[in-house]
């Protein structure tokens, strides 16, 4: 049985992405954030705008977009996983040819 999933607000997740994920929002549709490493778009994350609660399904799709496990996603939003730590994770994935 999987452990209980933590729920976050849209604002909490968007704030974590803004602060810790290297990249920029797509122009014209600010829900899509392109993760950029070494000047190249590596993958995208669809992050909802606004505040308030949202469903677990949307939260799960953001977690998958960020290429994170449940634990690392919690860390990214709860602050235990820092921006440089996350970037390092991405660089490792990049060196393995995964992204």
């Amino acid at each position, binding site marked *: *049985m*999987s*452990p*209980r*999933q933590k729920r976050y607000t849209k604002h909490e997740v968007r704030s974590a992405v803004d602060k810790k994920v290297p990249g920029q929002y*797509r122009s*014209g*549709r600010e829900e*899509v954030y392109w993760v950029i*490493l070494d*000047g*190249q*778009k*590596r*993958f*995208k994350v*669809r992050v*909802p705008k606004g505040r308030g609660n*949202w*469903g*677990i*399904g*949307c939260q*799960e*799709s953001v977690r*998958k*977009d960020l290429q994170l496990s449940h634990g690392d996603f919690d860390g990214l939003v709860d602050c235990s996983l820092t921006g440089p730590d996350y970037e390092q994770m991405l660089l490792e994935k*990049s060196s393995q*040819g995964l*992204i």
Partner: protein
Amino acid sequence: MIDWRELGDSWRDDPAAIRESLRIGASEYTLLRTGEAHQEDSGAWWEGSPGLEYRFEWPAISAQWHSAVHMMELRTRTPVNLEDRLQRLEGAVLELSEALLTRPIACSTSIIDLNSSSYSLNRPIPVLVEEYRDEAVATFPEVEAHGWGTTPAEAINDLKAEVILLYEELTTAGPEELGKLPTAWARVLRYYVTKAEEVH
């Protein structure tokens, strides 16, 4: 009836004792029969332990044997704590119910039109739809595109818009701008999508 607690550990060395082990729940007991030959009826003995009370019963053992039946909990026993077990059970039921409530109903379908006169599909796009209690997520897994909505139809329509935007973005970007995944996504999108002006 002799209470073993009054005997201390002396009963352990009694060579005439007949020992049997008894397991109740997670606890193990040693059942000890000692004493002189004596006719005795069956009997019962109540024993308490934290959060639980046991009643041990035994039949008349024989015409030759009986004076006492002693129950001795083994030192290695695992305590039966019903309150603790109940709490763990409640936690497990809570986790299970939340897992069931948050688990989506998933189905696969396909998109055959992008709701746009500017784009057409060369072939249907395979879509995974996950319906949660109060939302739905439609995913085109090969390009990691999602559509969200309160119903599957809303989520699929949202996904169509996302596919068009992604197609535009990836097909107009230079190859040096795109990493490994977006480059593959662009190939996949060209396989499925054609812009209207490209048809002629």
